[in-house]
């Protein structure tokens, strides 16, 4: 097992040394999370775009920090690393502990985890739809820059809706807090179960929350209809070739191949939509490899059995994407009825599956909100949710554990290896943005190619490339405490010798 992991590391290390000749490269042995964003564009001798990518600085030292710590600490540690999706890390780590100790959570524990997880997905997606993607779609790509912000979104949808978004967010966080204490330091997941059950007396308020969540999700679906789909220009933009790539897709599905955020097998479909692979999390290394390029700091994931076929789309591609668009492409359908209706409309409007339009991620996110809310309703109606049996104690010796969930931004893997005492000897994460890195690079490159020719840079470059990567919702969360609180987007254009010939900064 170790040999395979080592191989991933070594494959990455060799080209990194070449890159070092030109610029400082930070390649840590295993883990990379996300930080600031920067676009690097490399021109050829003719002044046309050769490569381009979104650079996200790495969070360093995760494995070193983890070594020797009790595996049970990982759900807390990993949820503290990232303030954007603490619940996703907490859950992936908890599932890795289940696997490490070879223990299945009790039925009640599983339901509690699923309730918390679906509530988290709903909240995080709502935040993106209204707050982060909203400026692009609810306010509109043609709106003046001064209006393309959160207050502009509220102006368009109304103050009451703004209040609703904030209130929903707060109530979901109360639910997460009920089971796990602080959102960023949750102490909910334990190998084989959860730390706290649901008292029957407290069920009614969560039932109420689930019902309101569903109203809210359906309302959001309507908002998307009214403001986006009724606008022919938006639909045209979604389908534009600039934002289209025929790649593979990856995501979790349940036994009936329906979309699942919390658990299931990983399914991969080809660019034509046929199933290419279906495997449990423990086999992720057989299917995912990482590659570095001499011109990039990033590692790009691709499908290992297919080999690296470049940043290309079409039948031969080994590039895959994760996140809402990918999940809707890998699933045969949604797991809940209203979400299924929304899904059918999505697929119908966009010309059938697989949907290759990156900007459709925004719509797919809304469809997923409906499933998350319906799942919350189903779970709070399930008498098993308030059971007392919330943990199965592990009895086996630990060695290797792999856990996977669908984070809001896509498939998230946690992999730990320990000694017999359960102390970490190896730790690896593959986060959603890493899975998406190659396709994001292709999107950035395509947008850049349309706007740079013969050394000439067309104005509007920043907006176009921003739209290209914003749809993926790449995670910059880990470093964003540092002021100014958002990260200025910086575009650097290099000539064929690698020298920076132009830098554009958007404050």
């Amino acid at each position, binding site marked *: 097992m170790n040999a395979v992991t080592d191989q991933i590391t070594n494959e990455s290390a060799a080209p990194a040394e070449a890159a070092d000749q030109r610029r400082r490269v930070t390649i840590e042995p295993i883990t990379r999370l996300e*930080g600031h*964003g920067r676009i690097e564009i490399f021109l050829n001798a003719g002044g046309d775009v050769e490569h381009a990518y979104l650079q996200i*600085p*790495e*969070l*360093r*030292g*995760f494995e*070193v*920090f983890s070594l020797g710590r009790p595996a049970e600490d990982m759900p807390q*540690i990993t949820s*503290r*690393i990232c*303030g*954007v999706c603490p619940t996703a890390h907490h859950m992936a780590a908890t599932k890795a502990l289940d696997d490490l100790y070879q223990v299945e959570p009790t039925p009640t524990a599983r339901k509690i985890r699923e309730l918390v997880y679906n509530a988290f997905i709903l909240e995080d997606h709502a*935040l*993106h739809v209204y*707050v*982060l993607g909203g*400026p692009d779609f609810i306010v509109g790509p043609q709106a003046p*820059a001064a209006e*393309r*912000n*959160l*207050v502009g979104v*509220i102006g368009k949808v109304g*103050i009451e809706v*703004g*209040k609703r978004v*904030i209130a929903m*967010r*707060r109530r979901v966080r109360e639910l997460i807090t009920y089971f796990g204490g602080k*959102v*960023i*330091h949750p102490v909910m997941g334990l190998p084989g179960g959860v730390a706290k059950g649901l008292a029957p007396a407290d069920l009614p308020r969560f039932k109420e929350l689930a019902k309101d969540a569903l109203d809210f999700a359906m309302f959001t679906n309507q908002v998307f209809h009214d403001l986006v789909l009724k606008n022919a220009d938006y639909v045209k933009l979604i389908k534009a070739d600039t934002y289209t790539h025929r790649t593979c897709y990856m995501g979790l599905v349940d036994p009936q191949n329906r979309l699942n955020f919390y658990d299931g097998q990983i399914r991969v479909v080809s660019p034509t939509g046929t199933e290419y692979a279906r495997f449990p999390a423990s086999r992720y290394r057989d299917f995912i490899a990482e590659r570095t390029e001499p011109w990039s700091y990033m590692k790009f994931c691709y499908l290992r059995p297919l080999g690296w076929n470049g940043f290309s789309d079409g039948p031969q591609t080994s590039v895959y994407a994760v996140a809402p668009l990918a999940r809707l492409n890998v699933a045969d359908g949604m797991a809940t009825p209203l979400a299924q209706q929304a899904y059918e409309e999505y697929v119908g409007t966009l010309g059938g599956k697989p949907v290759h339009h990156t900007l459709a991620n925004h719509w797919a996110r809304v469809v997923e909100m409906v499933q998350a809310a319906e799942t919350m309703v189903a779970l709070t109606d399930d008498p098993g949710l308030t059971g007392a049996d919330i943990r199965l104690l592990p009895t086996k010796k630990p060695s290797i554990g792999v856990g996977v969930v669908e984070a809001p931004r896509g498939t998230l893997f946690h992999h730990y290896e320990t000694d017999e005492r359960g102390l970490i000897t190896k730790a690896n994460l593959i986060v959603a943005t890493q899975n998406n890195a190659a396709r994001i690079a292709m999107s950035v490159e395509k947008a850049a190619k349309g706007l740079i020719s013969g050394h000439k840079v067309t104005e509007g470059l920043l907006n176009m490339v*921003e739209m290209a*990567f*914003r749809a993926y*919702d*790449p*995670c*910059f*969360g*880990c*470093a*964003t*405490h*540092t*002021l*100014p*609180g*958002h*990260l*200025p*987007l910086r575009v650097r254009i290099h000539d064929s010798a690698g020298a920076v010939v132009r830098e554009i900064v*958007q*404050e």
Partner: protein
Amino acid sequence: MTAACASVLVLGLGNDLLGDDAVGLHVAREVRSRLHGAAGCAVRETMEMGLALLDEIVGCEHLILVDAIETGKEPPGHVHEFDVDALVGRRITAPHFVGVAETLALGRTLGLAMPRDVRIFAVEVKDALTLGVTLTPEVQRAVNPAAGRIAAFARGLAGPGA
């Protein structure tokens, strides 16, 4: 929702696992010991950010934020001081983040009780990307002087008796 509606709230921001990123938390703790319960002043720390800050700041009259900053223009440990207005007008470019200025603007738009003024003290970091629970020496040295300055500023806002 956090209950205390002190007239002056000192709020330390940061991630306690990310090296220098935690400096705002360290400074806030020092400010607390210096203010030791001064009337009208509250000191809190949070690892949250963006919209989550709404819960923390609703109801306070004067807000003092203590955070890490990376400008690259000053040496590590330098303390930047500015009003939140300096951040207004910046739009979201990090896809999953809402800045402090925008969070305030949202709170006001929604009719929530937002602080009248916001002063930001931000310590220039050296390394906020490597996992660890200690500050680099340059940044560590800035903690006490920064805390003294902020405590004095908070007392000034809270008025006599603080």
